[in-house]
């Protein structure tokens, strides 16, 4: 019993380590790709000096941030100032605990390894609640700086994130009604059994969720809390060095979380396109290359990564295209459009599901 417990503990710790490392490695890659992709969209080259085609640019930037002097303003509330980057960073990483990266477990050294850290029956609720905690990091960071621009940025983000949580959560309800479970693994399984990705009946839900998700992660065109041309750098104006770096990493980790939840709930998680059509089974290429459970395991990770990357690409695309909303307009969009729409979406979904349901015998 106790030997089993210890094995489990070690296993879960190693898994957490692997996931954390992968996310931490994904962030510099995302930043590099963002700079390259937006560079392409803006008819310029992007980073190209550090390493071949500039691939080491973000590594160099990270090193620079680590080596910089750690400045804490004299008049700042020092404890809160130090705490704020952590308050936003930790939830961003914790959310990965329930995200399934693939559908098939593999066996290493006699231990069955599931491609998710844990599968709890409230997985989706866990993600929503834990990502709401991150807001405090921004608000407190802006307030603790004891400076005017960060204060404005923090206030903006408080209002923004509170009002976009609501449509975000309500948009997910539509998907939940189709899935019938809040377990992240269960949601994907439901899509496999139904033979369709839930974005088909939930187009409005996906749109609302993604718009609210962009606003949640403070990305353009909703990047008001750090609106550079208005508030200098918004809530992190007074932050420098790696403390600023932590905000930065958290922002990108949050982008992955939002994309991963969208992928899991609406785009079939690790499933290939048209999961019920046998003729398309060749799309899971790893199944033919690798033996046993490793094939489906890697195919799942492959499709999951592709879908998440597609969402992240849309993030970049939006950023390169749109101007920024104004504070009051942002509120209007959230409360006057997204909220009623997401409520209507729930209603329509409910009626549809009732209609589709086989009549009780």
């Amino acid at each position, binding site marked *: 019993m106790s030997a089993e417990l210890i094995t489990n503990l070690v296993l879960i710790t190693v898994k957490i380590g692997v996931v954390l490392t992968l996310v931490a490695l994904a962030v510099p890659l995302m930043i590099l790709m963002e700079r390259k992709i937006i560079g392409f969209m803006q008819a310029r080259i992007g980073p190209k000096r550090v390493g071949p085609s500039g691939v080491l640019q973000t590594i160099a930037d990270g090193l620079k941030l680590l080596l910089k002097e750690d400045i804490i303003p004299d008049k700042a509330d020092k404890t809160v100032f130090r705490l704020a980057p952590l308050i936003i960073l930790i939830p961003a990483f914790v959310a990965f605990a329930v995200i399934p990266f693939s559908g098939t477990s593999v066996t290493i050294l006699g231990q069955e390894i599931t491609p998710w850290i844990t599968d709890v029956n409230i997985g989706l609720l866990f993600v929503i609640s834990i990502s709401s905690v991150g807001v405090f990091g921004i608000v407190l960071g802006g307030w603790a700086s004891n400076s005017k621009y960060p204060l404005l940025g923090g206030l903006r983000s408080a209002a923004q994130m509170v009002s976009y949580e609501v449509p975000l959560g309500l948009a997910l309800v539509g998907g939940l009604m189709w899935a019938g479970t809040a377990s992240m693994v269960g949601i994907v399984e439901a899509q496999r059994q139904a033979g369709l990705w839930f974005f088909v009946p939930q187009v409005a839900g996906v749109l609302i969720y993604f718009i609210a998700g962009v606003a949640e992660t403070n990305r353009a065109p909703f990047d008001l809390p750090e*609106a550079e041309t208005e508030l*200098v750098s918004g809530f992190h104006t007074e932050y420098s060095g790696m403390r600023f770096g932590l905000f930065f990493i958290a922002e990108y980790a949050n982008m992955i979380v939002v994309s991963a939840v969208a992928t899991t709930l609406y785009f079939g998680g690790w499933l290939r396109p048209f999961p019920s059509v046998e003729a398309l089974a060749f799309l899971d290429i790893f199944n033919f290359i690798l033996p046993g459970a490793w094939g489906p395991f890697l195919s799942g990770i492959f499709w999951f990564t592709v879908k998440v990357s597609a969402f992240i690409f849309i993030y970049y695309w939006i950023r390169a295209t749109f101007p920024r*909303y*104004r504070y009051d307009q942002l509120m209007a969009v959230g409360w006057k459009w997204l909220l009623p729409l997401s409520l209507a979406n729930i209603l329509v979904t409910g009626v549809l599901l009732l209609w589709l349901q086989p009549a009780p015998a």
Partner: protein
Amino acid sequence: MFRTEQMEINMGPQHPSTHGVLRIKLRLDGERVVDSWPVIGYLHRGIEKLAESREYIKITPYTDRTDYVNAMSGNLAYLGAVEKLCGIQVPEKAHYIRVIMVELNRIASHLLWLGTHALDLGAMSIFLYGFREREMILDLFEAYCGARLTYNAFRISGVPADLPPGWAEECRGFLRLFRERHREYEQILTKNRIWLRRTKGVGVMDAEQCLALSVTGPVLRAAGVARDLRKDESYAIYDRLDFEVPLAQAGDTYARYEVRMAEMLQSARMVEQCLDQMPAEGDLMSMKGRKMRPKKDEEVYFAIEGPRGEQGVYLISDGTDRPYRCKLRNSSFANLQALAPMIQGELVADVVAVIGTLDIVLGDSDR
């Protein structure tokens, strides 16, 4: 109990979107502007005073450095005043070359405005697209006069050189490309709902108030006043060109956007007409010597329509080879007065929109 407090906040002189070194003291109620005081002078170099101790011919390069985004117009306004002061005739061909350069520079200046204005509102790509085309214009300027920012391209009584071989074709090629790209900008912005929301009804100023504050240029025309010195007090060879003065009625940020966008196309039209009409041969400068002594106590004022509005030079001579007084009436300084009334009661985000839409150059306002 709860109470609210107004907050004073200092925008600039180091701020990402105060277009140089403008400083605005804002008093905010939440994010709403209660009161504002623009502070200028951070780029004051005393160009007017310097001019008093320079010979007329040596002042031209200084005019480059007033409105450095649009140095050709600065040159033209000053030279026009000197030529008026001394009664110098400019050869026809030189006029055409001047107008070509000034209108190209107007496009370049408006492109910079478009880029920075859009960047202030968060649309980053337009900024780089605008700079891509502006770069082509700068290449054309470099081919003509060797400089890319401060041109000093004209001389008293004419221009120093003819257009280089092949320049006209390259210019026509650019204008064709530019029209295509202009459609691209419109596609990205004109029907973009966020852009419309950010610009419509923001920073409104009606014609009466514009005139009271002696605001000129696109800002005035966007309020419905058809005042364009190129039409009203035609100088150089503008009377031979066929062009329209774009107008809008709303007087808001979007109207000013519309006017400037249309002006770029009109300028492109004018350059093409100039290239068609320009005589192949002809004198470039009428004056041979370098010394000039205008009559004593002569006073002239000469103004042209710059990209930002009326760009005038007021000269008083005392009979020597240096002006007694050289007053530059630059449009940024006058237009900046419209800033405070425009942002009254608006949000912080609108402040940067209004700064962008006024298209101020601090070198121009501070001199």
